[in-house]
């Protein structure tokens, strides 16, 4: 059997479940009652929709940066050959993903409530309670918590694959630790970083669950608007148009990131 033919099942899958729905979305967004219109896109130009879009990008960006800053050092420590117990730490990073993210986010909701577990403990030790929920902070927290593993794993993967002799060579040639990191490790790990950024930024940009459960419904992101068009307003046209706009933004992000990613040697997405 030709090896290429092994890809056919996936191709058929992709055609039915990815390409056809995508075409439907394009159709819905441009046609109203059978005739062509750009009305759905014009509607999005209202300032409150733009505001929701900008806020979505802002929060997703902040979450991605926080994930990156926390994940890179962790991945470096884990990729260290002398590190013991690293399987356990890796397991701890991945373990939460075994559970449904909806449940975990619900759980955070009741832990962080004004009268929740954490605030009750604070009160018990005579500390002032803190309002964790119902704001941007809680939403960013939820995004970082949910998507953190997607940043750690690709970076860890790439770091593990770096040939140690390259680092040794760098030391042999007189470079100190900082220079070695800057000139050797960081550039070689870029594919993993880029993948991580994409894997965190995209779901963070489109989430509607975290905003509702941790943001108290007060933070309305673009994902919430799309969800509402399909489940409550029954306005498929506008929902599709907003989805299209979101996809274009994601595509631009991808194009931008893959340009930066000229060093891709595995571990990357594209």
């Amino acid at each position: 059997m030709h090896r290429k033919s092994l890809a056919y099942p996936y191709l058929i899958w992709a055609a039915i479940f990815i390409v056809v729905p995508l075409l439907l979305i394009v159709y819905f967004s441009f046609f109203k009652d059978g005739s062509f219109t750009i009305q759905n896109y014009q509607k999005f130009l209202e300032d409150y929709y733009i505001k929701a879009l900008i806020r979505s990008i802002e929060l997703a960006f902040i979450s991605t940066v926080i994930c990156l800053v926390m994940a890179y050092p962790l991945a470096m420590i884990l990729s260290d050959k002398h590190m013991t117990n690293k399987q356990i730490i890796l397991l701890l990073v991945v373990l939460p993903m075994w559970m449904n993210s909806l449940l975990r986010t619900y759980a955070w909701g009741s832990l962080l409530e004004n009268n929740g577990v954490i605030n009750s403990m604070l009160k018990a030790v005579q500390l002032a309670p803190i309002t964790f929920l119902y704001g941007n902070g809680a939403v960013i927290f939820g995004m970082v918590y949910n998507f953190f593993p997607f940043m750690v794993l690709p970076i860890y993967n790439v770091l593990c694959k770096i040939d140690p002799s390259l680092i040794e060579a760098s030391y042999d040639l007189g470079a100190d630790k900082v220079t070695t990191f800057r000139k050797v490790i960081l550039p070689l790990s870029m594919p993993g970083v880029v993948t991580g950024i994409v894997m965190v930024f995209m779901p963070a940009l489109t989430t509607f669950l975290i905003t509702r459960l941790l943001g108290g419904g007060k933070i309305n992101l673009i994902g919430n608007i799309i969800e509402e068009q399909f489940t409550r307003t029954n306005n498929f046209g506008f929902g599709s148009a907003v989805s299209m706009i979101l996809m274009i933004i994601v595509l631009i992000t991808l194009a931008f990131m893959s340009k930066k990613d000229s060093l891709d040697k595995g571990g990357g997405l594209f």
Partner: protein
Amino acid sequence: MKKLTKAITMLITVSLLILSLAGCGESKNAITVYNWGDYIDPEVNDLFTEETGIKVVYSEYANNEEMYATVEPGNVNYDILFPSDYMIEKMIKKDMLQKVDTSKLDNYKNIDNRFKKLPFDPEDSYSVPYMWGTVGIVYNTKMVEDVVDSWDVLWNEKYKEQIFMYDSERDSIMVALKKLGYSMNTRDEKELEEAKKLLIEQAPLVLAYVGDEGKGKMVNGEAALMVAWAGDAMVMMNENPDLAYAIPKEGSNYFVDSIVISKASKNVEAAYEYIDFLCRPDIAAKNAQYIGYSTPISKARDLLPEEIKESEVAYPKDEVISHSNMEMFNDPSDIVELYSSIWTEIKASN
């Protein structure tokens, strides 16, 4: 070891495939019921199967719109649905319901006359009332000193960040329209504009726009005031005695959720049996006691424990209910888009 893992994975895949195929076979002696979440005593379905031998395949939705979005494309068949007043009106218009011949229902006579010939189904030809109730304010008497008898309390600066609003444009805009003294079914853009301004003004005072999770939070004392349905209020007050419920004097929403048979139903006879079963006073009482909402069947109400039967939350006095400022929603299809953009604008003001 690797072989074992492989074998297990194969096994799981195969059994999943078989399971999913098995789901396709439809049993003749079963009905599919699609109801609101938490809207039936789970024992009732078992009792029904015990008595009739008809299996109940039961699933739940969170709101009318979700139910409509699931049923409308026509690729899932439910026999029995429980839409509210305005949704029934819409579904009749869209020809999604079957006529119900009430003369075939032995227990139909139990339903009180004031729940018959309602505006959404004037001839009672499509729907059989299941539960009814009002929308009002649940408040924590330990946290609220003022008398709660008006929507105004939800705009009181004193309760900044202690207010839960319902995360639904329809219910929230209803509150604002009622506070302004307008009809909640208004199509007047000026009145809606005023309602929008009022809700934007309120936004900083609101702690969260909640869904069903708000009930538990309210019981825990997370907020002082919440817009809620009377049935949910009954459940919450049962769990936390500090809570109380009031129907504001400006009027509010009064709703009836009814049982209907979907046009796509293939097992109409069993559906009739199920509806008749739910209208039987002992069963209706069982449901009403479990879910906290109000039954339209007086005989069932008589079977309830004293504290529910006499509760003015579940069964407000007639003069409250029949006042002209208590309204039912009508089909909002023509205005949902405007509502949706108003709601986005309110949320974006934060």
